[in-house]
């Protein structure tokens, strides 16, 4: 029993399992539990020597991140167990191979035997015992802990103190706390200058977001996963959890973080060109601190909601629009607003664009494309496109992800940048009414 958390680990369950498991598996398990951190052995050390630059900052860069959830404990336990067993199996095989290579050489004048299969009982034992041993390793040493781990992993609902819904889209996460009425978008905050510099200095390069997911430590949190476009995957290595977000379906997983801290991960399924730039950062707070955060955020969201309705100056809109554009739009439409030839249309009126008829027909229907060139549509139509996306294309519905002020700022920015000089100023109130109109 893990005394810190009161959570039953795989080892405890194996202890319970029965005579066979106790007699045969427990000694191995014991030695592992005592030496959790020693696994890969000399191969790891050899390769780690090559990776010395990274050793300086991480405690053990060639190891699992320190596990902080029951699932991660199970995983690390099983991983250590497997690798220890594998190392023994591989070691025995290689010893046989090397002995033969050294001893049974033609150059030593060794004359070959002529056998082509086991004959005596002893020879049969040599052949059959390894196979039986492997079956035992598969279905007892590994099979029993794995069974319990699978069952525990699937139990997402029992005792869940909090439900969080994570919505994936290219290339950010949106987190909602339905009971607390909190919702925010979380996207990469590493500055583009760092990414383009060629030599990043930021210690959490590509592992940092504007709004991290905040979770209570010591409580079971049920995480629901959905996706708005393609398959993404929510993965935080220290939690041992990776679950795909499949568009059109609800997936779920759970975490129970034992220690407050900051945990970092990335999207775990190839989701397009921004796949490398879709981090997950979780801040686990102890119970009182978490409650405070909830209250503050709720108040803050109300204040933000109020502020959202206030009109903004043209300069404020442009500045806010530039930042929001670079986070949300530039991954596809590019910083320059020129898009990608053949795939993502430019945003400047009069720019030439060629693509499949399927895409250009859709754009033409919306009025943004005529005679091979991009046309700037009226404000209300453009708001409609940004709020609801264009189905069948990579353009997502930003109405689900961004607030009124951000959308107003982005549209203002786009209509006054990249060679567009409409002079239009779009206020949050216009976005709000555009949302209502569509409903």
């Amino acid at each position, binding site marked *: 029993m893990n005394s810190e958390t009161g959570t039953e680990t795989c080892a405890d369950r194996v202890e319970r399992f029965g005579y066979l498991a106790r007699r045969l598996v427990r000694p191995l398990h014991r030695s592992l539990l005592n030496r959790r951190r020693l696994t890969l052995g000399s191969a790891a050390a050899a390769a780690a020597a090559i990776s010395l630059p990274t050793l300086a900052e991480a405690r053990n860069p060639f190891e699992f991140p320190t596990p902080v959830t029951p699932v991660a404990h199970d995983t690390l336990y099983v991983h250590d167990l497997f690798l220890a067993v594998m190392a023994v199996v591989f070691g025995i095989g290689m010893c046989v191979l090397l002995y033969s290579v050294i001893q049974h050489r033609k150059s030593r004048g060794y004359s070959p035997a002529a056998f082509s299969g086991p004959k005596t009982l002893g020879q049969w034992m040599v052949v059959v015992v390894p196979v039986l041993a492997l079956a035992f390793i598969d279905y007892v040493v590994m099979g029993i802990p794995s069974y319990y781990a699978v069952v525990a992993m699937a139990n997402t609902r029992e005792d869940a103190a909090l439900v969080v819904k994570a919505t994936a889209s290219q290339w950010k996460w949106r987190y909602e706390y339905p009971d607390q009425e909190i919702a925010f978008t979380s996207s990469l905050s590493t500055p583009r200058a760092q990414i383009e510099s060629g030599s990043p200095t930021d210690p959490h390069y590509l592992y940092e977001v504007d709004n991290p997911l905040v979770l209570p430590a010591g409580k079971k949190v049920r995480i629901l996963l959905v996706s708005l476009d393609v398959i993404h995957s929510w993965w935080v290595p220290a939690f*041992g959890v990776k679950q795909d977000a499949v568009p059109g379906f609800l997936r779920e997983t759970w975490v129970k973080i034992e220690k407050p801290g900051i945990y970092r991960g990335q999207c775990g399924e190839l989701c397009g060109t921004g796949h490398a730039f879709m981090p997950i950062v979780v801040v686990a707070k102890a119970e009182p601190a978490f409650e405070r955060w909830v209250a503050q955020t709720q108040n803050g969201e109300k204040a933000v909601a109020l502020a959202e309705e206030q009109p903004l100056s043209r300069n404020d809109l442009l500045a806010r629009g530039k930042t929001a554009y670079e986070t949300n739009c530039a991954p596809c439409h590019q910083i320059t607003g020129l898009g990608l030839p053949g795939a993502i249309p430019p945003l400047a009126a009069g720019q030439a664009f060629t693509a499949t008829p399927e895409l250009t027909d859709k754009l033409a229907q919306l009025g943004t494309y005529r005679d091979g060139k991009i046309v700037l549509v009226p404000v209300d139509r453009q708001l409609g496109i940004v709020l609801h996306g264009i189905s069948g294309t990579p353009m997502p519905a930003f109405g689900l992800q961004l607030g009124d002020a951000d959308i107003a700022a982005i549209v203002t920015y786009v209509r006054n940048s990249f060679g567009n000089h409409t002079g239009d100023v779009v206020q949050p109130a216009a976005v709000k009414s555009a949302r209502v109109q569509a409903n």
Partner: protein
Amino acid sequence: MSSVSAYVNEHEHEHDHKPRGLARWLFTTNHKDIGILYMLFGVTFFLVGGLFAELIRAQLIHPANHVLTPELYNQAITLHGLVMVFAALMPVTAGFANYVIPLMIGAPDMALPRLNNWGFWLLPPAAVVLVFPGILQLFGVGNGPIDTGWTIYAPLSVRSGLGVDFAIFAIVLLGASSLMASINIIVTIFNMRAPGVTMMKLPLFAWSWLITAFLLIAVFPALIAGGLMLLTDRHFGTHFFSAAGGGDPVLWEHLFWFFGHPEVYILLLPTAGLLSHILSAFARKPIFGYRAQVYAYWTIGVLSVIVWAHHMFTSGMPIAGQLYFMYSTMAISIPVTVLFICWLGTIWRGALSFETPMLFALGYIGLFGIGGLTGLTLADAVADQQYHNSYYLVAHFHYTLFGGPIMGVMAAAYFYLPKITGHMYSERAGRWHFWLCIIGFNLTFIPQFLAGIAGAERRVVDYPIQFAGFHMASSIGAFILGAAQLLLVYNIVVAWRGRTEPASARVWEGAQGLEFTLPSPPPYHTFAERPAVV
């Protein structure tokens, strides 16, 4: 047996009226010519696929690198996978089947020679179709070749550019080609064996290809059907893979992996068969456990089609599904262990010598051993959440696919090169090739195991600086590994030009089998009259 080769020699000139020049290769129905075409095609695309790998490693050598744009990077990882699997490894193993199996079983040719020609000549257009969008892009049409990863997961592949359409057409062509080759091999093995070559005297390479051929026929149609469904989703408004219309993106994963997992064994089995011949030749000792190996092939073949969803543990699966796919996957380790024991039993107490084919064969046992054992950890449905799509997974499948099939193909290439060309390759260059492969390969992929365990995500164009050391080591390893392959090309050229020592009929002191009773190179037509094997 010696009377057989005497007969062939006498009549060599009468039968050897092959056409000259390009026409010989375009219209050939000769199994040896077609085998050589397959092998040259495979080696060419092995180098092309390797070039993509080097591009990937050049991009990843340090964080925030800009050798490739994210678009080009995604295209490079996709083409690396597709080219290596479909255009390098499968053609090479099919080439060995074409060249060697008729010789091994005493058949004059493949059973369906014209089909054989057609099967091969579908490959070059397929390869062109696969990379053609890259050329179109240069002229401003579309946005380049397929960029979805070789797994082509929907809905990313539904939304991606026209590269996906071209890739689907390429896969359909490759599938048709593979099905033809498979049918041909099955018919040949069942009907064309010389008198006395009963099924349980069939050389292991022929057995392993027989099962491979059945696997291909069983699973390739699933990929072709999936590809066509994807095509109709993309262009004709169907919703097989879209929840909005009642479909399911995970359906694609099932179709893909129903093909994709047996594909691993399709690549592996032929080289497992060859390995036994090579180990036996250089141990100067009969193959150990012939029957056990045949039964192991069958068991692997059957198991391989019922374990596919272990590639999908993170996609959201009920408990029963996770447990079933976990335990059934573990079962595969048992027949594979049987193979390992048979390989070790074959060299045990032999009189070993270490020519290049033997070196690669021993390297196969070691590297594939690591690949197989790390595969067991991936079978655990919960631990897999940590390994899946991390660099641990990348390292694992390169240990199985490079450590197994590619090492096996190298061993077989050096084993049969003197037989095919009639001249020896440079043993010195061969040894260098082997040792550089071993050093380069391990330096590439051991750091990837460690990076993956530490949480490094794969298929990313840029990465957190925590993983910089691993990636640097891995890239250096990959450059060594890539450069080493030029020695293979050098050796092929050396043997082909024929200025080295001529190879004897037996080539290797311990070589067994009908193919080594024929002169090197074998005459254009062999076994026009059936040899009798007792």
